[in-house]
């Protein structure tokens, strides 16, 4: 690391798991998460020269989110592909699943993935990537008030889905 700017290898090694977690919570499955992370790391490599030391995780979360949103837009243009929030794609029994995962976290992940992405993205950025409303607003290019509203609605929807799932 020079002048607080990490190398690409350091980003991949030290922040890879953070990036993967954000990608997985956004995409809802391992295959898409791996593609998101790989594409995000390519963008990281391109952007590192101009990276100004600050919130590295905020920067990385923003890149992963933008890759995800690009992909969502692309799939909308080509509707033959399943969208990430297709519930059937949410619960693949993955051999790479974290051993710590429980049925409860699977249920939460399923509910999260079933949220429309306009609500899912702020929820993931706030509650998984630990970003401030201001950072989320900057990432998404929307006012802070919009972030606040979408985040709240997303949480309420999530709660409703979890309650219905438990019933």
């Amino acid at each position, binding site marked *: 690391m020079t002048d607080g700017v990490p190398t*690409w*290898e350091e980003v*991949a090694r030290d922040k*890879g*798991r953070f990036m*993967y*977690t954000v990608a*997985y*919570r956004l995409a809802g499955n*391992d295959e*898409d*998460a*791996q*593609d*998101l*992370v*790989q*594409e*995000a*790391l*390519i*963008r990281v*490599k*391109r*952007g590192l*020269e*101009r*990276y*100004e030391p600050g919130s590295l995780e905020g920067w990385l979360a*923003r*890149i992963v*989110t*933008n*890759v995800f949103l*690009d*992909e969502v837009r*692309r799939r909308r243009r080509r509707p033959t*592909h399943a969208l990430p929030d297709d519930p059937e794609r949410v619960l693949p029994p993955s*051999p*790479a699943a*974290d051993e*710590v995962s429980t049925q409860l*976290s699977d249920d*939460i*992940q399923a509910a999260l993935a079933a949220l429309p992405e306009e609500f899912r993205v702020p*929820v*993931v950025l*706030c*509650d*998984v990537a630990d970003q401030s*409303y201001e950072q989320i607003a900057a990432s998404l290019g929307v006012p802070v008030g919009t972030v*606040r*509203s979408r*985040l*709240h609605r997303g*949480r*309420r929807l*999530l*709660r409703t889905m*979890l309650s219905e799932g438990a019933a």
Partner: protein
Amino acid sequence: MNREPTMPEEDVLSAYLDGECTDAERAWVEDELASSEDLRGVLAEVAAARDAVRALPLRDAPPEFWARLLASDADLEVEVEADTEAGAGPVPVAAATAPVDLGERRERRGRGRWFAAAAGAAAAAMIAVVVLVPQPQTATPPVGALAAAHSVRSSLQDDAVSTLAPLAVAAGFRR
């Protein structure tokens, strides 16, 4: 003129939980919570959803994913260069504005692997041919016959130099 303070939107409850509301909003929420069971119910629901997502464990890719990714650093370099040549340019924080096609990239990675496999097979075949097939070690160019033919042809043309080309090709050493 006295005006009733505007009641904040319900989303102030999420902002309250996240420490993202103003002092005035916080005071309003706390006042209301003291008297409104409904609001306490909504706050509890939002807090439960928030806590549930925050409690999700970190997730990691299979170890082979990282091994492959770090090992293929050179491949990523090529992709970065390809993207840059395609006009994407260096992307700093704002990054991520250029639309990407992950399916296409996945396909490109697949093609890359196929090409690598095909190239490897071709190289192996060439080595096998060179090593295993007996090759004559003597060079026997039919120089005499070709020179005779050339001399016949060149005698019929004005441009002697241009007629040297077919001779040069045909007189290449055969192994």
